[in-house]
């Protein structure tokens, strides 16, 4: 038996009997926050932690060369899944760094000619934060609203681009609501207007087909740990023809064509490459399987609970995501109640705060409904059994919380909650 098959078998076995050797762990349905590593990915990484430990930038000996060869193979694997040339891929410490580098790097390099950037209000925090930082430096930024389904309005985008615009940054897939932006249309528009198009693909790579040529993408951010690879590694695609120039954030040794210095973490690069290759190969099958699981979950919830609302488009959405608001339920109590499920109420990066999700607010979801939302993420290792148990758990807790809620009672009596004049206090 090959080692790979053995690893796969072990996984199956532990799925079948989760409680045998350790206490039952919560069901993990937070695949947009992070993903477990695929054992096949881990296996390709291991040798580079131990016997093949060389510095890939050492040019004088075998240890360095074998590490460099592994890094270059990984670079080709990353390039392949997005239809790029390997010389257009640079490794970073993750998508956050990639987004920072793409936006600040381009803005700083071209600042003598252009000073305007365009993005969406629903972008990931690290894009918005980079934009705020650039504003402090004197750049102009347009934050476009989104439609009720979470998608960009192309006419508004076109109107926002001026002759001072250097770059448009629009994410491929939203981390909270999973909606897919029309990348090909955005790319075409940007090319026509002569502005660069950057897209944060942390949630998109391996989930939907991506092609930097067909979609006219100039810069793309990629994450390792969202696609069953390791944390601490990502990549930035930077177009060569026509060449996009960047001012580096981390300078020094001159690695990654001067765009990103620092010793490359060989095992992490190898892990990202392998994760991309597996994702590319298995995407068609995996999408079908995840769509089935998601529909199973959503249909069961809808059948058993009234007053549940889906946030964001269902049609333009990755298969592994649902974002649902449970009306007449207090959000924090729900999260605390379903502690056998690892799910998120909003993006992981912001979920430690109690502010309602800015993404949901941008869709026009009111504050109360934003507070009662759950993000449910399905992935490669999610089973039908887990889906069924999760549904049961959520239905049980929502029902219980609603029984205790005076608002739920009023709603059932036909009172329009919105018409009530609350005492100010």
């Amino acid at each position, binding site marked *: 038996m090959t080692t790979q098959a053995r690893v796969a078998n072990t996984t199956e076995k532990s799925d079948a009997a989760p409680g045998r050797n350790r206490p039952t762990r*919560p069901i*993990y349905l*937070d695949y947009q*926050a*992070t*993903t*477990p*590593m695929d054992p096949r990915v881990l296996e390709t990484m291991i040798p580079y*932690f*131990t016997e093949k*430990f*060389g*510095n890939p*930038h*050492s040019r*004088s*000996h075998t*240890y*360095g060369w074998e590490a460099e060869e592994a890094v270059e193979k990984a670079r080709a694997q990353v390039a392949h899944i997005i239809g790029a040339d390997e010389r257009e891929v640079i490794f*970073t*410490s993750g*998508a*956050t*760094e990639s987004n*920072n580098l793409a936006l600040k790097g381009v803005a700083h390099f071209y600042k003598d000619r252009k000073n305007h950037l365009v993005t969406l209000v629903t972008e*990931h*925090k*690290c894009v918005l*934060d*980079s934009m705020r930082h650039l504003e402090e430096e004197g750049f102009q930024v347009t934050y476009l609203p989104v439609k009720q389904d979470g998608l960009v309005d192309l006419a508004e985008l076109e109107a926002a681009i001026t002759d001072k615009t250097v770059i448009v940054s629009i994410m491929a897939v939203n981390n909270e609501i999973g909606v897919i932006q029309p990348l090909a249309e955005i790319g075409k528009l940007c090319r026509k207007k002569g502005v660069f198009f950057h897209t944060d693909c942390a949630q998109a790579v391996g989930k939907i087909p991506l092609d930097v040529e067909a979609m006219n993408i100039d810069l793309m951010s990629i*994450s390792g*740990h969202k696609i069953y690879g*390791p*944390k*601490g*590694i990502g990549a930035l695609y930077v177009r060569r023809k026509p060449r996009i120039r960047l001012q580096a*954030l*981390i*300078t*020094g*040794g*001159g*690695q990654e064509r001067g765009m990103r*210095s*620092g*010793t*490359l*973490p060989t*095992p*992490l690069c190898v892990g990202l490459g392998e994760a991309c290759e597996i994702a590319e190969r298995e995407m068609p099958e995996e999408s079908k399987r995840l769509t089935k699981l998601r529909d199973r979950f959503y249909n069961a919830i809808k059948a058993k609970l009234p007053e549940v609302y889906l946030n964001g488009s269902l049609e333009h959405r990755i298969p592994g995501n649902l974002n649902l608001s449970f009306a007449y339920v207090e959000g924090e109590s729900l*999260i605390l109640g379903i*502690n056998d*499920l*690892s*799910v*998120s109420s909003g993006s*992981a*990066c912001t*979920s*430690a705060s109690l502010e309602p999700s800015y993404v949901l607010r941008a869709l026009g979801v009111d504050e109360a409904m934003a507070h009662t939302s759950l993000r449910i993420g399905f992935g490669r290792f999610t089973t039908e059994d887990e889906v069924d148990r999760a549904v049961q758990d959520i239905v049980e807790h929502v029902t219980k919380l609603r029984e205790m809620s005076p608002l739920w009672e009023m709603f059932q009596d036909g009172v329009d909650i919105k018409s009530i004049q609350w005492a100010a206090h």
Partner: protein
Amino acid sequence: MTMRAYLDWNATSPIRHEARAAMTAALELTGNPSSVHGAGRAAKALIEDAREAVASLIGAGANQIVFTSGGSEANALALAGSDRRVLASAIEHDSVLAHAGAERIKVTNEGIVDLDDLEAKLGDKTPTLVSVMLANNETGVIQPLADVIRIARAHGALVHTDAAQAAGRVPVDFLGLGADLMSISAHKLGGPQGVGALVIGERATVAPAIRGGGQERGRRAGTENVAGIAGFGAAATAATVTDWRTVTQLRDDLEQRITGLGAEIFADQATRLPNTTNLRLPGIAAETLVIALDLEGVAVSAGAACSSGKVRPSPVLEAMGVSEEAASEAIRTSLGWTTTAEEIDLFIAALGRIRDRIGQRDMRAAA
């Protein structure tokens, strides 16, 4: 299997088994440290344990540690965006020099930072951040940081020190030293590549380069490299008990034997790391020597790894006043805690054979 000798520990160290075990365990975990559910909190706990371990290795407070993607990023975070003049020594790593002003603190022939020159350059009252490394990557020379800090303090300057090569090899005491900022790297002390840390003291402030998400108290955004950080912590703990006396003996033995072969050692009178030797065999170009050694199964380096792809004499040796010809012949050996006497024997034997073969050929060519 043919015997091989890895004598390039300053480029990267093999991973410690403690670090490997910690990483394997961490890779089995799924959570994002920012998630509030149990899976997320477990990942967060690993990071905080590692923060304690790293802090303890270098005598800093855990809350002063900011994890980064490595030493280069730590240097960038410390220096780029500083509102002070950055005054670096002439022998700093490229990732420091990239963020420093054109003016450089001179070094002596032994590769030690020139304290008189530092004092003179601080005399102009410009608010300054001084950057002097704890130990040099090419020569291993340990810098007089306590003196640097004393002089800097007297002139109201802050001090950053790149301790990537020193941490885990010689005792480092951030608080005792009184430095304001210190960069360290995991893969130089037996942790994984792709993780490092910046230590930020009370007086220092930094301008975050990577923003959004609010991790590391807003000073370094991005989902943390959980396994890497766990490996860093385990390596730091292991490093506190590593005995360097064996390495020192092996290094002394190596230096004695290469001197016997006619080699010249740079900065041999200076206080150096226990593991680093920068040497030349007069008449044999460094590029020729490293390739010939690799064919014999010995991994060494010609200058720093980051720049070893580029053929140019080392700026460090140049700053020490070494002639261009001598600098073009310099190679570096660096040892570590698993280096054996057999590896040293292999290196010495190979060096002897190469000297005889190439030395004779060159003499024939000259004749």
